[in-house]
């Protein structure tokens, strides 16, 4: 039974934290899921009513953000990854570090490099989300996290393809970058970093398209 989730919260900070809690608890057994959600809902309510004023939203959000690593560790303890042997976890973590280093190397190479790095990181995140999604005894995933992971991979492919095309077909490439950025920005919006990266990427693509249109117009004018 859930009571806490039915009680509305008032502040935007609480709504962001509640959304994040719903996301990282999705796919867990009902009892575990609702216990966590109810406990955080109670905390958010107490916080809002204890400290009224304009600072409540940012303070609640800060508490939520600072707890994200602990939330992810808590979630990971309940995922398939936790049942992997030690060498499996080491391999996954090693691959993560390798991909991150590759991403940083590519990121030093301008907009196409930035889009590629973002595509690699978002795609890898999608793979990790799918790999850690809970499953039943027959190995069938029982969570909408698989859908989330798949969407992140689609976003990564779209952004990566757009980054490749942007130098040759600026409009098409730019549109793909904007589309992919919108997609992963939407799915990663509670992480704050995700939407900021998405906005940055989309904005740079818009500027690129605008520059291409201006230079195209200048060439036509000269003709």
């Amino acid at each position, binding site marked *: *039974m859930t*009571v806490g989730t039915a*009680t509305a919260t008032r502040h935007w900070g609480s709504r962001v934290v509640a959304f994040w809690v719903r996301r990282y608890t999705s796919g867990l057994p009902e009892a575990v899921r609702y216990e966590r959600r109810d406990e955080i*809902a*109670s*905390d958010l309510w107490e916080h809002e009513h*204890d400290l009224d004023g304009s600072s409540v939203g940012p303070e609640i959000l800060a508490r*939520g953000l600072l707890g994200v690593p602990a939330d992810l560790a*808590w979630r990971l303890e309940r995922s398939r990854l936790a049942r992997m042997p030690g060498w499996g976890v080491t391999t996954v973590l090693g691959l993560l570090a390798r991909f991150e280093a590759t991403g940083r190397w590519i990121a030093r190479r301008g907009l196409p490099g930035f889009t590629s790095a973002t595509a690699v990181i978002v795609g890898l995140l999608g793979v990790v989300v799918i790999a850690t999604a809970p499953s039943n005894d027959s190995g069938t995933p029982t969570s909408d996290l698989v859908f989330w992971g798949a969407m992140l991979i689609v976003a990564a492919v779209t952004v990566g393809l757009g980054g490749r095309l942007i130098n040759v077909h600026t409009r098409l490439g730019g549109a793909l970058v904007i589309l992919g950025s919108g997609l992963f920005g939407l799915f990663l919006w509670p992480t704050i970093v995700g939407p900021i990266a998405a906005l940055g990427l989309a904005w740079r693509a818009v500027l690129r398209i605008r520059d291409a249109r201006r230079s195209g117009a200048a060439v036509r004018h000269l003709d």
Partner: protein
Amino acid sequence: MRRKPGTLLPIEISILAAGVELRSQGEAEFHGYRAAHFIRDREEARLLTSHGTLYKALERLRKQGLLTSHWEDPTIAADAGRPRRRLYTVTAAGASALEATRVNEVQRESGSSGLQPA
């Protein structure tokens, strides 16, 4: 990294200390936010303990038998117009673990300063 059995993390010590101190003030049970608030005031911190850290630590302490918990009667919460609270109590084992940690800290401090405990 695994820690030695019987050792408590700083956040766990803070929670147990908050629970013991609240009980001495007449609050036998506490909820997560109450503990976070108490810890912030006691340690003069700027921010409350984050949700993730706080509730993960509370769960660990509960699993170790250092805290017990139960959900508040939903009718009480409904009457008050708020979500129901999960209420925690420090067990005898929790109070002993806190005391043992404090004794160890005192011994370590006196050992490092070259003094013998009285």
